[in-house]
């Protein structure tokens, strides 16, 4: 009888706590979004599954000795996984559109206002009882506005590891929601005439420019913002592998096998942070809310900056491409293209929007470096 009782005590049913059940439901929710709605499935699927695994009673996935515990500490706590992913993103990024029209860098810069404005919002939420965000927490939350998953995870693991789960969920969910969040803001801030603007063709970019560009970006980061060099350095390495043309094997590995393997572990590791104690509180709601605000402000400031540039520029600039300044590559650029096509069926903005889009990646890496340098000490 005693052994039967012991057996019962070792079952999941006897050990379930309400919080764990709720978090498993949240995990299933992420799986649903990934499988049925196709929302960032590459990350949300392992993340949702990680959330289920980490909340299994008795198994101890996220305790010392458990698989997810080691995955988290080896790859996310150290910052290695997001950086490897950033290298892969670098290897996938083509800077031609940006080099061909360097002014679009300003759009990528303007969209980062979403990040810094959200900092205010996060601090203001301290008025709500039950929420207490330090400046470090606020900075980690604000980076959601950069719309760049690896950057958000990297910064959160450095500044506010206890909020990492909620921040990653918010960042990836909103990135998946870009086609829903952005168009209304873009339409509200532009006139029909502006949306119809056709842009001049980009100048051809030579190979040497594409090779020197990542090196130049790295050099500038070394000079002005060494705290951003982990992100920018890995990004530039990936990009140089791509553009040099002499290490196609490495470039192909970085943008395929390596990034895929890392994505599996990154998703699981982030999922392991979705425990009931860390996730089921008012702060998570605050983070989800602030993420949406950050995205919207980033989109709006990008569009407004593009409107301003269009006023003063000799060559016409379609304000819609400003919205692509929040990174979310290439989704945001596709959205700009789609909204442009609605207004003018002959207007293909995709290549033009890729400029601010990749500028946004650089911009959010720079913003992350600034936050690390100013708040991380």
């Amino acid at each position: 009888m005693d052994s039967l009782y012991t057996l019962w005590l070792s079952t999941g049913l006897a050990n379930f706590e309400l919080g764990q059940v709720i978090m498993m439901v949240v995990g299933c929710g992420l799986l649903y979004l990934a499988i049925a709605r196709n929302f960032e499935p590459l990350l949300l699927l392992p993340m949702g599954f990680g959330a289920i695994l980490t909340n299994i009673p008795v198994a101890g996935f996220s305790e010392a000795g458990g698989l997810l515990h080691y995955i988290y500490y080896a790859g996310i706590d150290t910052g290695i996984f997001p950086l490897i992913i950033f290298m892969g993103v670098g290897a996938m990024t083509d800077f031609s559109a940006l080099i061909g029209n360097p002014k679009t860098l300003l759009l990528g810069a303007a969209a980062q206002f979403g990040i810094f404005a959200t900092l205010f919002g996060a601090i203001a939420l301290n008025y709500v009882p039950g929420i207490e965000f330090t400046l470090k927490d606020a900075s980690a939350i604000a980076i959601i506005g950069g719309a760049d998953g690896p950057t958000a995870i990297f910064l959160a693991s450095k500044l506010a590891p206890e909020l990492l789960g909620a921040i990653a969920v918010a960042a990836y969910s909103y990135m998946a929601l870009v086609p829903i969040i952005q168009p209304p803001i873009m339409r509200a801030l532009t006139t029909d005439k502006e949306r119809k603007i056709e842009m001049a063709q980009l100048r051809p970019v030579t190979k040497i420019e594409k090779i020197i560009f990542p090196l130049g970006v790295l050099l500038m980061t070394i000079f002005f913002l060494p705290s951003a060099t982990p992100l920018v350095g890995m990004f530039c390495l990936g990009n140089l592998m791509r553009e040099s043309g002499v290490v196609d094997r490495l470039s192909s590995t970085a943008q395929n096998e390596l990034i895929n393997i890392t994505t599996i572990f990154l998703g699981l590791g982030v999922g392991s942070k979705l425990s009931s104690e860390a996730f089921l509180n008012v702060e998570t709601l605050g983070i989800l809310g602030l993420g949406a605000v950050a995205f919207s402000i980033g989109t709006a400031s990008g569009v407004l900056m593009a409107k301003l540039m269009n006023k003063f520029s000799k060559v016409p600039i379609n304000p819609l491409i400003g919205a692509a300044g929040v990174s979310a590559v290439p989704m945001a650029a596709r959205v700009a293209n789609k909204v442009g096509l609605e207004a003018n069926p002959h207007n293909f903005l995709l290549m033009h929007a890729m400029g601010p889009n990749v500028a946004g990646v650089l911009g959010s890496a720079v913003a992350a470096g600034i936050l690390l340098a100013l708040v991380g000490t």
Partner: protein
Amino acid sequence: MNNMQQQFLEAGTLMLAGMVFVFVFLSILIIFINTVLAKLAIKFPDPVVVPSSRTNKKSNSQVAGKVSPAIVSAISGAVKRYRAQHGQAK
């Protein structure tokens, strides 16, 4: 309350410093592209890719039935060489 004001002040400073820095950084990058890269592009143009892609595009856009002289000379060169080789083999 005082603490909150202090935090707001810090957040404000961070916002100002951050935005200024992002703009300055990316503006320097614009200057870098417009000066260094643009000069490099003029000095070291892509030697092979550009002309070949141009001729390709031209030949593609040719009206059917009218073949460009470049293609005619290439084909006749190849035929000549083939005939010469063929003759040697015999």
